[in-house]
């Protein structure tokens, strides 16, 4: 049966982010959620296996029956299974069609089985690594202690009220955090030493060898790519930008596959926003549009939008209204005062209809728009105009479906329109804990928030051309550094196939799906556990992410600085202290 594929976060998938080599991860990313009426037509039941085929390939999934998904659609948690059948065309935006793919769903055949995540990566040219270190890689005085007000390095909420209980050099308790947060703080099984892929499998190498190797492939490459960054801290990102500049490479971050289109929209129309505290103290209307915070930002509603005390709200919980706009009836949608269920790809038209109504031109709006009744649209527009302070939280439901950045732009223009009547703001639901930080550091260092290409000697930016998926699809990249991200799990098949063929170094504390495509992986201390640095929350508030244990491994900044130093020496770039010394020496010589 022909269905429309859409992928996204689930909390169960999110909990396994640091356990990707574990079968539980595979279990979560190989599910597919289908409406019961469609299941009848396909001829399968809940729990059965199906084959899902696309233009790119096919793989086997396990069916979950749900009425939350509209007829005609199949929802798959994001991960290697979904991406193994996704094509890599971005329509000039850099972001793949994670939420829009025509697929054929048929019952599985005799002997079909679900492939593990590792098997998927191996089918894309990778090699699994399953020799993690069960021991503890930090050092700390033995005994117990509790660290309060820790900042959580998981999602864009950057909650800074986490309480960690540490016992004998080990984090054993996480209070206040959500499931995703605990998943990360409690994750063990890190990589102990740098590893290198050889003809006979993986072998351990020294940090010196790994660093030399990395500098070497970057120096030799014609079109090197430095990708990821949203899982590391600002100080390390700055070194990354300097490396990219020194080698004339491309530096890109995860925005290019998630909220890059939001940034493109902002570059066209601007961004009427505010900090999250402004929202919790004032907002009486919260709109989540194409965003599912319960799964992706579990504490967002309790800390910043629906449930906290608000200075200007007497009874914060009752005084706030919630609107959810989505193609699926998510758990957030079930709690909404108004759930606007739109047909996939219909966001742009719904924004336009609302703009028309707000401008007093409801006469031009047809009776239904993208499956939404006009009466509901008028009700929603009135709720917006009657709010004292309203906010749109926009998710990747807008950026990865047809229209992409134009959807977000239309949303911004609706806010612009509403701002003539009341107070309204818009905040993209940035995903990774420091993905907004990558945009900040790239911008002040080089001028552009992502997809920055230094091959001309100056910084050049053109998402769709200089963004990771497009570069990999065109086969331009001939060496790649991956840091603070896991493209192995989150890029479409062709991209991973391309990465498997070129020299590729992963800088990451854990074995991840990207380990499979790497030639070398360098393990590092984890920011928030045994490393520290600056991160930017999804509303651009900069926070210090502290270290709670002492590291035995170098951190990202140290590794990158050593790589930079080798490159700088080979390229004849003199470091500042040396320049000062040189000036002194020149003076001495002149005497």
């Amino acid at each position, binding site marked *: 049966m022909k269905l429309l594929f859409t992928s996204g976060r689930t909390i169960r998938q999110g909990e396994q982010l640091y356990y990707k080599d574990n079968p539980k991860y595979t279990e979560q990313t190989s599910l597919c959620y289908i409406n019961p009426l469609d299941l009848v037509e396909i001829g399968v039941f809940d729990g059965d296996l199906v084959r899902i085929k696309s233009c790119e390939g096919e793989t086997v999934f396990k069916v979950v029956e749900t009425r939350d998904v509209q007829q005609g659609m199949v929802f798959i948690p994001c991960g290697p299974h979904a991406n193994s059948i996704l094509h890599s065309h971005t329509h000039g935006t850099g972001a793949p069609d994670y939420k829009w793919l025509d697929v054929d769903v048929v019952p599985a055949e005799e002997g079909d089985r679900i492939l593990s995540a590792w098997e998927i990566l191996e089918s894309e040219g990778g090699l699994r690594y399953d020799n993690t270190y069960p021991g503890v890689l930090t050092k700390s005085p033995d005994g117990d202690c509790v660290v309060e007000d820790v900042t959580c390095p998981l999602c864009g909420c950057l909650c800074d009220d986490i309480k960690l209980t540490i016992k004998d050099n080990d984090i054993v308790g996480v209070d206040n955090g959500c499931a995703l947060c605990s998943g990360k703080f409690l994750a063990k099984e890190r990589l102990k030493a740098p590893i290198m892929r050889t003809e006979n499998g993986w072998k351990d190498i020294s940090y010196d060898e790994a660093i030399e190797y990395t500098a070497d492939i970057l120096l030799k490459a014609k079109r090197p790519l430095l990708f990821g960054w949203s899982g590391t801290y600002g100080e390390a990102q700055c070194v990354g930008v300097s490396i990219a500049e020194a080698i004339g490479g491309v530096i890109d971050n995860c925005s290019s596959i998630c909220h890059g289109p939001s940034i493109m929209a902002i570059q066209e129309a601007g961004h009427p926003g*505010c900090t999250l505290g402004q929202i919790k103290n004032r907002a009486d209307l919260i709109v989540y549009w194409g965003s599912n915070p319960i799964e992706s930002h579990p504490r967002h509603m309790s800390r910043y939008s629906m449930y906290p005390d608000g200075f200007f709200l007497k009874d914060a919980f009752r005084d706030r209204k919630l609107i959810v706009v989505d193609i699926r009836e998510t758990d957030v949608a079930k709690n909404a005062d108004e759930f606007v269920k739109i047909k996939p790809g219909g966001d742009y038209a719904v924004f336009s209809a609302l703009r028309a109504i707000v401008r007093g031109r409801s006469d031009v709006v047809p009776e239904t728009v993208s499956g939404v009744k006009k009466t509901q649209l008028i009700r929603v527009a009135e709720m917006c105009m009657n709010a004292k302070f309203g906010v749109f939280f926009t998710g990747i439901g807008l950026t990865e479906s047809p229209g992409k950045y134009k959807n977000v732009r239309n949303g911004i223009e609706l806010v612009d329109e509403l701002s003539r009547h009341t107070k309204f703001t818009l905040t993209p639901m940035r995903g990774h804990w420091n993905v907004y930080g990558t945009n900040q550091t790239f911008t002040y260092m080089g001028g552009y928030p992502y997809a920055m290409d230094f091959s001309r000697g100056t910084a050049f930016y053109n998402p769709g051309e200089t963004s990771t998926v497009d570069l990999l699809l065109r086969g331009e990249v001939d060496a790649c550094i991956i840091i603070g991200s896991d493209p192995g799990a989150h890029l479409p098949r062709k991209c991973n196939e391309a990465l498997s063929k070129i020299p590729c170094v992963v800088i990451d504390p854990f074995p991840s799906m990207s380990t499979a495509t790497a030639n070398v992986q360098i393990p590092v201390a984890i920011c928030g556990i045994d490393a520290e640095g*600056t991160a930017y929350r999804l509303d651009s508030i900069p926070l210090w992410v502290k270290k709670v244990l002492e590291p035995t491994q170098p951190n990202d900044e140290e590794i990158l600085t050593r790589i930079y130093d080798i490159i700088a020496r080979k390229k004849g770039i003199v470091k500042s202290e040396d320049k000062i010394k040189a*000036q002194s020496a020149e003076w001495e010589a002149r005497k």
Partner: protein
Amino acid sequence: MNELLIRNAYVIDPVNGVNGEIRDITVKDGKIVESVGSRAVVVDAKGHLTLPGGIDSHTHICGTKVNFGRYMSPEDMRAGRGRAQPHMHAVSGYSVPTVYANNYRYSAMGYTTILEGAMAPMEARHTHEEFRHMTLHDTMANTLFDGNWSVMEAIAEGDLKKAAAVVAWTLSAVKGFGLKLTNPGGSEMWGFGKNVSCIHQKVDHFGVTPAEIIEYMIRANELLKLPHSVHLHCNNLGKPGNYKCTLETMNRTPDLNDKRQSLYLTHVQFHSYGGSKWSDLCSKSDDIAWMVNRKPQVAIDMGQVMFGKTTTMTADGPMEFNLYRMYHNKWSNHDVELETASGIIPVFYSRKNLVNSIMWAIGLELALQVKSPWQCMLTTDSPNGAPFVKYPEITALLMSRKYRDEELSRTHPDTEKRTLLHSLDRELDWYDIAVMTRSAQAKALGVTGLGKGHLGVGADADIAIYPVKVGDIDPTVEYEKVIKALSQTEYTIKKGLIVCRNGNCLVEGRNTVYWVDPQVPDEYRLENDPEFIKKFERYYSVKLSNYPVRESYMHENYRIETHPDFD
């Protein structure tokens, strides 16, 4: 460290009353000294114009708002791109340059100390992160208090000391330098999409007026003995007829400090408008200058507008939205909880546009009518009026009536009817310019004693040598030579190190962040106030313990401890 001997310098050093003497300047360990030994390195200034390093007392270079200006404007980034040089990073950005571009371009113009004009306390860490890369400049940040809830609550209670305590705690927590008010009261009102009109409208809920906020903050500032005065962006920016609001604000200013002004009014060009709507907009620079001339307790900067493309950015959120409704290009807004607001839009100032032509004239008129250059500093409120790279052109306009007339003739034909620039004969000299670009700033910021803005013994060896012999050119006629000379130094020396030569930056380092740390009595320390802690935890979206920028976060920094008298 090396000793340095600058020979044959044509020195203008207004703080020390030096006006064009050929001198030698001797430097040791980054400071100016009486003499150096025979082994000192010699720089021959060849009789060229030599000034203390330039100081910008109001510009926007580092922080959340500035970076958002870059982030939303790839077109502006592309307009200012430059390749990496042997000792310089690649740069981007024309009106909102990247941090390295700001660093190099200011240094090439002979500037060595820069004040970021508006830092939201909650986002201070971002400003300091960028400051780290401003390697050729000492930096400091004005800290925003215009919509600070704790300040407004203290004022509503009539408690000056408590208001001062809030300022003290915040400045030390965020490593800020000055007390900045941007459209006081207006940013809180903007939280619900409203604004205040001039200074007597009460702020909703808090029940205090902008006039009260300004007055309390001036008194609190002096109580805390801060080096700089209150730094005010007046209410009603950019509105026709706003000059009355500006005049009243100036007139109410008490004279509380004998070393410097008690109130610094920034980008006053934007606040000197007559008329009642855009169609009858006219210059009221004469009235504003008249007030400044009789009030030693105020100092202003120009906020000069120059024609061309730029980006406006300010904590004045409602003003930016109004401006956006005229330009309808793109608009960003960013309100900061419990503290302030901000907005950004790109603009184009056209010489064919009457309003823009009037704005251009007003800035120059202010500088020409304020009698003492110590009271009127040269700025563009960069990038709001124009990017700072336009400073040499502005200087040339102030020095040459001929140049002004030529430029005026190219503006909208009605400009003369609405302005008085054509009637002003004054032509500033090099000494005036030296005051308006460094010495007055040092005095206004209260950092002369820290060795800024002059070349006396003990001062920081921040020195700019420009490729021009003052006696050889007539700036009233040869304005192009003035522009050329001021656009690029022969030598920019920072703390005794030659950091930039003929536009090529040579090294990094030697940059310090200045911040203040007023020591208030224990009973006024906010961290001991349970009520403050309770409110903070309830209404901010970060934990109190994670709010302060720790000293260990900072690069090189200089803490200015003050000892207020709270008894």
